[in-house]
């Protein structure tokens, strides 16, 4: 790989983005493309400003459900993985069902969950759906991580009379941390996807997140508004990913090979 200064590496994608925006603006103006087909970046920006309060409210709704689902996924995923590590029987009994939950498309489950929970508690339904999607990566990576503890270290702990609890907290959980943090990066993105898909499934009027703003704007052919909501969704996804990548770096950079910057 060509070695570029740090600042240039960050600037290059930003410069490309601006170039594309300028070209986009110019093409829309030059060919007089109608707003309901492809709005210019300036029109999208205007839509974002015009609808700022309602879009922000929707952003907050989507963000809240995403974060809550993600937090629940981390807590329940780690807890179940710990349970699996302590009992092979529990693992053999439950793991297939976790897999079934994972492989069944969320779009297909959404209507059922929404009917069961009820439209009057739509946020709870969205939370459950987003949790289902976000849960599995945490469970599978943490299960693998807990199992990957150095066997010799396990022997050493036992030799010095460590209890199962000490082996779990002082050896297995730290060994699983890099795996868990990696799973969290996948799971954070999936929590957002799960929330958005669930909002689509919930349909008109009841859900008020960003996905619903997109559906609503699409129905009214307000394409600029659609783009504005889409832009916010993408920004949200990127922010979640970066926050989790930062957390991973912060937790691992001192000791784990994956997070150590190579001196070449």
């Amino acid at each position, binding site marked *: 790989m060509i070695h570029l200064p740090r600042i240039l590496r960050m600037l290059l994608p930003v410069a490309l983005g601006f170039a594309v925006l300028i070209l986009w603006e110019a093409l829309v103006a030059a060919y007089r493309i109608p707003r309901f087909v492809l709005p210019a970046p300036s029109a999208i920006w205007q839509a974002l400003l015009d609808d700022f309060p309602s879009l922000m409210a929707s952003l907050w709704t989507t963000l809240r459900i995403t974060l809550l689902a993600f937090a629940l996924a981390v807590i329940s995923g780690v807890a179940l993985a710990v349970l699996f590590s302590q009992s092979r029987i529990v693992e053999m009994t439950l793991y297939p069902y976790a897999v079934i939950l994972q492989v069944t498309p969320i779009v297909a489950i959404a209507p059922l969950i929404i009917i069961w929970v009820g439209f009057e508690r739509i946020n709870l339904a969205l939370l459950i759906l987003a949790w289902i999607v976000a849960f599995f990566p945490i469970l599978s990576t943490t299960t693998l991580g807990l199992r990957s503890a*150095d066997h*010799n*270290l396990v*022997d*050493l*702990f*036992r*030799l*010095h*009379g*460590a209890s199962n609890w*000490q082996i779990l907290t*002082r*050896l297995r959980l*730290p060994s699983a*941390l890099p795996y868990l943090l990696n799973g969290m990066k996948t799971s954070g993105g999936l929590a957002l996807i799960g929330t958005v898909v669930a909002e689509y499934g919930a349909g008109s009027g009841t859900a008020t997140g960003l996905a619903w703003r997109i559906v609503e704007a699409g129905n009214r052919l307000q394409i600029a508004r659609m783009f504005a909501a889409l832009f916010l969704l993408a920004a949200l996804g990127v922010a979640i990913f970066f926050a989790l990548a930062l957390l991973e770096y912060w937790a691992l950079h*001192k*000791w*784990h*090979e994956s997070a*150590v910057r190579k001196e070449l």
Partner: protein
Amino acid sequence: MTTIASLRNVERVFTNGVKALGPIDLAVEKGEFLSLLGPSGCGKSTTLRIIAGLLSPSAGTLIWPEGKPRVGFVFQDPTLMPWAIVRDNVRLPLDLAGVPRAEGNARAEAALARVGLTGFSEIFPRALSGGMRMRVSIARAVAAKPQLLLMDEPFAALDEISRDALNEDLLTLWREDELTIVFVTHSVYESTFLSTRIVTMTPRPGRIANEVKLASPPNRTSEWRMSPEFADAARAVSRGLRHATEAAA
């Protein structure tokens, strides 16, 4: 001489029914530096793990005539916790024994000083060389003041220069702490340099072929390594190993 550990008719059978070890009889005498020497698959590591209690014998018994001593174990790999700084790694057996944190830290620092790692206690293992990591591993083993130290080819992965230096330092620890050491190796020269007694083993199944008692000076340094007496001793051990493997083949 008092016996610290005694294996009687010990066998170990793999889960597939193949006999890996034995039957063997072996008495570990208090204060000796005993090496188990032999080719791979001769059951020397299995024997060590049985003594450590990490494996149970399929047949036969392990006896502690003086009661069970405090046991330390050093693996072939340094086997350190990568997320813990050097001092915390060394303190691990003390933590598990319930030693208070402050006392544990002091004992860990003292153990690190003894293996020549003063000033490295705040560093993460990944920043250390292979030889230094092995020193941390040894410091961890001696910090808990073991009466019996079991070592499973601890220096096999090191370069010769680090290995020779560690051999001499290990002998100093053995002398100062009056340790009993059981040391697994496949190196004739290493076992000749370190040991007071060498037991040679042969594979399929692991058996004891012969043993050599060494009348080495208590103070073995690099001088001793270059002496004609050392060469004679190494030749005797080498011959014993050759006979054992030829007889087994």
